[in-house]
């Protein structure tokens, strides 16, 4: 292959990476825009993920039609090898970029580490075995989930904050230099930023994990992709049977080993060509001074297959440990406890199904207009880390909104029409009679009654006499909750004027979905 062609193919590859990264963020931001009609079709990225498809089949024992799209990359992998990682994956593109940055800052040559390369296959086995046992951990490591979650929870809000606190003041300033920033600010405000700064309890943790993954590229090129990514492992397994091959023309090759210089997994087609690890980035073609590397498509015969050498012992070991680990959350307190303190978005399926179906992507958090949906930490058990829970102190469930029910890629939050959502009982409002002004201080308040969106009012007034804080008997319009009418939207808790602890708050009492763990 001529060097002109290799430069072209390199440009194409980088172009494709930028394109898909841009597309991913375009769709992510579009998901969160309030003027975009919410539907599952806004962002189809997740439907091209065969790992999530696999986990979803295991969880539901059914096939969700849109996920059949993920057959396309699988099919292409059978022809072109593990091209997905270096041509499509947006998270791969980010890791690729930072590997390139870090490479410039260090001289030491990297070496291949086959043991480390095998780790991702063990992780994949663990994930699948645990999914079969009913414990879902795959989405913590799925690259799409990681990128969408980190962007929604940490990166986008941080960018939002930085722009609001730097450009904005500039835009209001009268001086000419900063006035130039005004169009930039207005453009970002209109197209990228949220109207209101998003705040998440888990921002720090998720943000730090994201930066850790990026920083790992400092030690090894595309660290996450080569050693951790379960989706990469899945594609690696498929690529084993692919037609694509790199072949070194032994007549031309001078054994200089320059081809390993920029190899994403530090191998080389000359010495350690591993079909399952090759990301089809064609760096070696570019680096070879003799142009001795050739692309070959041939039928994957058994002897041609470069095997992934895990060793029987490791496979059996990881299966057994998968079975053991997946039992741990089943024997934690949440499995038997008769009460639970967290709330799930409207339309959520029963808890057991939810924890298996939810892919922790954070789409519902991105689309929620009021910041109500938050990534959980330990509220929903260790297994439920980063699943969506509701915090009515942060936001409230908008009565006329069903956005989160429309976009869940795996239907962990089932589709509800606006009318259905208005009837869906998320939980019930409970009055803390030690804190409510109309009970303990003896004066009228009623902010919650005012905001209650149920047309009949689930929070009502009754005229009673209360000993007020001056020790006098006073006539007060005291609030009470009509439990049957309350849908648990949480606006009462959100607007309660108490500063310490809301005097009315939502609990999972009488929630509509089943809680059979």
């Amino acid at each position: 292959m001529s060097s002109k062609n290799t430069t072209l193919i390199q440009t194409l590859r980088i172009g494709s990476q930028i394109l898909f990264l841009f597309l991913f963020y375009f769709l992510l931001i579009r998901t969160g825009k309030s003027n975009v009609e919410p539907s599952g079709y806004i962002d189809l990225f997740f439907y091209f993920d065969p790992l999530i498809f696999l986990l979803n089949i295991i969880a539901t024992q059914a096939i969700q039609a849109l996920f059949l799209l993920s057959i396309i990359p699988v099919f292409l992998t059978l022809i072109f090898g593990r091209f997905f990682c270096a041509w499509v994956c947006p998270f791969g593109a980010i890791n690729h970029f930072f590997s390139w940055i870090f490479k410039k800052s260090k001289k030491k040559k990297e070496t291949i580490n086959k043991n480390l390369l095998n780790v991702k296959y063990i992780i994949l086995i663990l994930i699948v075995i645990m999914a079969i046992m009913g414990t879902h951990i795959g989405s913590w490591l799925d690259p799409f989930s990681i990128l969408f979650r980190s962007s929604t929870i940490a990166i986008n809000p941080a960018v939002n904050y930085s722009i609001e606190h730097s450009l904005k003041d500039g835009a209001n300033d009268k001086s000419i230099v900063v006035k130039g920033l005004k169009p930039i600010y207005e453009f970002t405000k209109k197209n990228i930023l949220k109207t209101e700064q998003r705040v998440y309890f888990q921002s720090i943790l998720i943000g730090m994990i994201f930066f850790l993954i990026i920083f790992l590229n400092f030690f090894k090129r595309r660290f996450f992709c080569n050693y951790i990514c379960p989706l990469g492992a899945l594609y690696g397994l498929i690529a084993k049977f692919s037609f694509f091959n790199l072949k070194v023309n032994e007549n031309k090759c001078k054994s200089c080993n320059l081809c390993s210089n920029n190899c994403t997994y530090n191998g080389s087609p000359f010495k350690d060509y591993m079909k399952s690890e090759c990301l089809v980035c064609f760096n070696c073609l570019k680096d070879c001074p003799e142009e001795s590397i050739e692309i070959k498509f041939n039928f994957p015969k058994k002897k041609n297959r470069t095997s992934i050498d895990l060793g029987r012992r490791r496979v059996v070991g990881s299966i057994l440990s998968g079975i053991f680990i997946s039992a741990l959350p089943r024997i934690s307190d949440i499995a038997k406890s008769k009460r639970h303190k967290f709330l799930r978005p409207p339309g959520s399926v029963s808890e057991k199904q939810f924890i298996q179906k939810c892919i922790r992507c954070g789409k519902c958090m991105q689309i929620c207009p009021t910041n109500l949906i938050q990534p959980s930490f330990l509220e929903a058990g260790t297994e439920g880390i980063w699943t969506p829970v509701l915090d009515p102190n942060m936001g409230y469930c908008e009565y006329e909104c069903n956005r989160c029910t429309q976009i869940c890629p795996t239907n962990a939050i089932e589709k509800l029409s606006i009318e259905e959502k208005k009837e869906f009982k998320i939980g019930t409002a409970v009055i803390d009679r030690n804190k409510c002004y109309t009970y303990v201080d003896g004066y009228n308040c009623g902010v919650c009654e005012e905001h209650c969106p149920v047309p009949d009012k689930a929070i009502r007034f009754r005229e009673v006499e209360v000993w007020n804080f001056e020790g006098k008997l006073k006539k007060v319009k005291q609030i009470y909750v009509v439990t049957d009418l309350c849908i648990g939207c949480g606006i009462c808790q959100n607007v309660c004027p108490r500063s310490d602890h809301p005097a009315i708050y939502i609990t999972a009492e009488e929630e509509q979905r089943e809680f059979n763990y």
Partner: protein
Amino acid sequence: MKRRDFLKTSLLVSSSIYFPSLINSKNVLANSVVVKVHGDSPYKITKRAIKELGGMQKIISKQDIVMIKPNIGWNRTIEQAANTNPLVLKAIIEEVFNAGAKKIIIMDNTCHKPEETYKRSGIEEMAKKMGVELRYTDNNRLIAYDFKGEKLKRWPVFKDFLEVDKFINVPILKHHGSAELTIGMKNLIGIVGGRRGKLHRDLGMNIADLAYGFKTHLTIVDSFRILKRNGPVGGRISDVELKKTVIASTNIMEADVIAADLFGEKPEEIPFIKFAYEKKMGNMDISKINLKSFAA
């Protein structure tokens, strides 16, 4: 200085600080007129009401920057009557522009999220057509404002409302659980920020203080559709009643008195009207109010 002298002087000083608040009379107007127009089109009756009030040029000067403050608090449609009717606003905007105003801003500190309420209320669409700036509240633009009231003293207000030349209040007449009714004075809650829930203790007094301390140049009460029950959010069409009326006045309190009467409540039983009357902001007795009724 002796202790007694010190006490005397400090008393004098402190009373002189507080004394101006007693003679503050921003919203006390003599000889105000209240216009009440009944008709089938919210747009036409608003136009008529402004005309009968003596025209908008009486209130707006050339090159004024005008703030129109409707009620856009809730994510509800026009038919649900939780927000000011956009057609009423349209008529006002036209009149204000005809009077020579430089710029009109529409803004409200909403209860639901503004992106949603501005859109669903139909006000966003109307404002875009009319070329009016629609502004969201921004907590960075809050400044403490001294209302010098009995109950309400310093409270954060959005700068936007203080930086304009004229302020037009366009509430919708609605039932309200804790304030009994929401009309002109109650609508002013939408100019303040902070923890507004805290104002609900002695709400009537706070609203009266708010209306007393903040100058409203014109109040136009949209009573075309009124929410009779389950306010201020509402949601059910059966709770909405067609009154097909608009009430306009330069006196915010007298407009509220007439509106309360239209709603079917006794004005003296509405706490904030009662307190406003005690502050001598206007007449509470309907027979004493200079009321002109028209049908358009």
